């Protein structure tokens, strides 16, 4: 029940912020209307990374506590995370085309790191599909999730170095908004968008988790039933 309310609140929040971002907040002086996509783009990117962090952390908890609920959290984080990652990349490309002139800019650390994040997610999810046993699957996934999460900061750092050392001018990065001198309406819109998206993310995570638990529960009942059948068959011989 509470989740449903959360869902509606999130929906309304996103709708409101979309309107604000599209119509209310002024366009950027240099980049024009193209800059508006930056709001959902940055918000998605934030959630993409948050999701991965959650997945990795949940993996650690599984290894520590051996409670399959943690694995359900990890799975939810990965699936929801993939969505936001894909959207963030798409947003980045859409924003890049009018501003940079190209869809892709190798030296933008955020874009390249996020693309790699997508590859890591894909590997994680594929790996999960290849194992049937729930505990083996959880363990393998946790390991992969942890190593991948450790890799992300290294990637980001190295790409920044890449950019820095080559000193090519990267015109207008989305980060301009995040500095303290940025105009207030921009910052407020961004914050609002991030909050709205985070609400959506929370709602989706809860729902996906519930689904995952339901799946586990069903699997569990089936297993218990098989065992009972085997015993009953033996008892009647």
């Amino acid at each position, binding site marked *: 029940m509470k989740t449903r309310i959360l869902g509606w609140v999130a929906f309304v929040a996103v709708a409101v912020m979309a309107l604000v971002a599209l119509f209310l907040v002024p366009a950027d002086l240099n980049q024009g209307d193209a800059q508006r996509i930056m709001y959902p783009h940055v918000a998605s990117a934030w959630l993409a990374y948050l999701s991965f962090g959650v997945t990795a952390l949940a993996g650690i908890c599984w290894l520590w506590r051996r409670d399959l609920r943690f694995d359900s959290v990890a799975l939810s984080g990965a699936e929801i995370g993939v969505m936001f990652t894909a959207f963030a990349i798409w947003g980045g490309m859409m924003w890049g085309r009018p501003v940079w002139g190209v869809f892709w800019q190798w030296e933008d650390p955020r874009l390249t790191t996020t693309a*790699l994040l997508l590859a890591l997610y894909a590997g994680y999810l594929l790996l999960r599909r290849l194992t049937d046993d729930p505990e*083996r699957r959880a363990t393998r996934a946790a390991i992969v999730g942890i190593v*991948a999460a*450790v*890799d992300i900061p290294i990637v980001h750092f190295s790409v920044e170095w*890449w950019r820095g050392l080559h000193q090519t001018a990267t015109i207008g990065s989305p980060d301009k908004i995040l500095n303290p001198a940025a105009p207030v309406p921009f910052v407020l819109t961004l914050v609002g968008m991030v909050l709205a998206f985070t609400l959506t993310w929370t709602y989706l995570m809860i729902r996906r988790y519930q689904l995952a638990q339901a799946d586990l529960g069903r699997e569990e009942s089936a297993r218990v039933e098989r065992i009972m059948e085997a015993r009953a068959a033996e008892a009647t011989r």
Partner: protein
Amino acid sequence: MTALRYEARLALAIAAKDARAEMRGRQAVVSTLFFAAVVLLLFGFALGPDRARLAEAAPGLLWLALVFAGVLAVSRLHLIETDDGALEQLALYPVPRRAIYAGKALAGLAVMAVLGLVVLGAVAVLFGTSIGSAIVPLLATLMLGVVGIAAVGTFYAGLTVRLRAREVMLPLLMLPILAPLLLGAVKATAAALAGDPFGELGAWLQLLVAFDVIMLTAGLATYGYLLEDG
């Protein structure tokens, strides 16, 4: 014997066992070398014949060849353990898991080091890069790079050896992780070859060291979980 000495002995025994088995049986080093050579040749066909362009691309091609050949090499080292259930037996010995990882990574490193030297020579010949005075930084970069490939590769090879579709899962999982290593190694190699005009060589080498340390630690800490059979 202290615990560390004991574990080091175990790791060396495992590495020696891998080396011996490979030398005798599967000719892994030789076939991986040929694979790397073929990859380089194909690069030549794809990007040549302009020597200047090839020379410029040489550092990247060197490391791409090493990374791809590296996937094969680590995969083969874990395939030894599919001999009649050897991996399960290995997991049953009362030895710390990280010693097993260390041993296998060491064996992987040995293979990669040989691979690296040969590929470096091949690249110098095929793509006309003059090594000359850059030999020391080049070797340093080579060593740091192959340590990273061995560390990451051994870990993922252990993960995928019992998996369905392992031939595709190993590179799929391993290669994205190696992205920063690839970047650092290529940049360091290019800088070394050019005589380090911007003074960036040190920074890239630091990146490689950091990567190696982090990944080795991760491998040592988590390899044990891979050996569990659910």
